[in-house]
Each structure stands twice: as C-alpha cells, then as structure tokens.
C-alpha cells in the first residue's frame, strides 16, 4: 500500500479475546468497521450522514488474512484506504498492526451502494466527488 489512508488506534479489549488468549478472528471485521468509519469521517462525510442522506453501503464481501495473533491490551492500529470506486460499489483495504509495527492481518471489504429500500443505486455525485478526490490523492 503506497497510501496509508486513515489510521485508527485502540487497544485489544478483554472481551475480544478467546480461550486461546488472542483476539477472536471475528473481531477483525469490527476493527475494519472502526477503520472504515474513521475513514469516512476523515474525508468529511461521516457514514452516519450518508445514511441520513439515504445512502447505505452494506458489506457484500469480506476477506481477512491473519498472519500474527493480537493479544489483550496490545495497541492496535488499523490502516484503511479506499482501493476501488465503481459506479455502484466501493472497496476498502485494511492493514492491522500492533505497537511494534508487526503486521497482524490484511483484508478488504466490498460495499454495494443501496437506498433505503435496499435497492442498488448509483453512488450520488456529492459523495462520488469526495471518493474520487481521495483516489486521485492516493494514486
């Protein structure tokens, strides 16, 4: 990843660990959401605002590759960047690292743009401008 995008920082909570003493793999999907929410907010369009404008981005696809475990209280950073913008979908990429800079996991989520009735819609112009601006900057 040439562009690090947004960085979100938090510590692994005890509630996120499992019997193996590491963060359960399902938690990474929630961490990706933290990264995604911060990414939208940092671009000046919070995801909450998207929803009030009738623009929703449900997850159509999730993929995670785990390389190292995350332990309780580790300081985690999630690096989020937009990797693709299409007329009706977006893809975000994530890198999860610990405080030593060790890469713990990578992944992506693909989102379809839908309206309140969950019908697929073209990403509206006001939002597209923001997204494409970011793509231009990061390329």
């Amino acid at each position, binding site marked *: 990843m040439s562009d690090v995008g947004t960085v979100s920082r938090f510590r692994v909570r005890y509630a996120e660990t499992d019997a193996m003493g590491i963060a359960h793999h399902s938690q990474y*999907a929630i961490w990706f959401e933290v990264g995604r929410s911060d990414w939208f907010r940092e671009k000046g369009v919070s995801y909450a605002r998207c929803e009030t404008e009738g623009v929703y981005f*449900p997850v*159509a*696809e999730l*993929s995670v*590759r785990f*390389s190292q*475990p995350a332990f309780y209280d580790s300081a985690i950073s999630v690096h989020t960047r937009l990797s693709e913008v299409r007329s009706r979908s977006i893809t975000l990429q994530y890198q999860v690292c610990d405080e030593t800079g060790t890469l713990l996991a990578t992944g992506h989520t693909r989102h379809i743009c839908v309206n309140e009735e969950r019908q697929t819609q073209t990403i509206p112009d006001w939002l597209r401008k923001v997204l494409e601006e970011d793509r231009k900057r990061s390329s």
Partner: protein
Amino acid sequence: MTTPYVSESTLRVRYAETDAQGIVYYANYFVWFEVGRVNYLREVGFDDRQREREGITFVIVEATCKYHAPARFDDPIRVRTWVSEVKTRSFRFAYEVHNQDTGVLLAEGETAQVVVDGITFKPKAITAEFRQRLVSQRDRPA
C-alpha cells in the same frame, strides 16, 4: 467422485446479533461459521478432548464471506459446513448459510486453518488420523 460429508447446524438469530439496520451484523457470520465448524469436527469424532489428547490445535489464517441476503432477528438459520481442501499442514472449510424456512442462500464463505503444535504453536503436519476424520465420507449421524 465422492461427495464430502456435510454437517448441518441450525440456530436462530439472536437480537444481540442484529444492528441498527435491523439485520445481522456482518462479523457474526464468522461466529456462525465457527458453530458449523465445531459441530462438523464433533460429528466426525474430533471434539475438544480428543484435540487435547492428540496435542494438536489449529489456527485460522484466512476467512472470507460473500453476503447475498440479510438475516433478521429470530430467523431460523441453517449452516452447511464441509471440508473443501486438505493439504500437508492446512485445510479449508466451506460454509453456506441459508434461511431454513425459505431456503434462500444468505451467505457463503471459507476459512483456512493451519495445524499447529498445541504448546509451541509451530505449524506441523496433519496426522493420518486427523486427515482421515477430515475427509470422512460417512453419513450424517441420525
């Protein structure tokens, strides 16, 4: 061509699993995959005690999910689980999540696991016995 053993698990969507959209939050499908995976292993005779006896465990190195349709609170869910690949030190489970009443496919995914030593967590070869259980062709227990 033999068909792989398919384990079927059923569950109902809990309110805690839904989000502000009124549908199941996407991370929860990995937990449902786990329900399917653990049931599969138990059904082929590999429960947690067996795992400890054999001194092996496995870690998830990859997980993917494609979401086709949303699930809602109290929906009856069926998770179909089977082994899609067995290599020297790793194996893959494949999953399908359906609405049990309508039969609609809600999601499908895979997880890849690497077998590791229970103490050192170093990757190790899948034992013949474990492999035999993973590729089990036997019918579903009554």
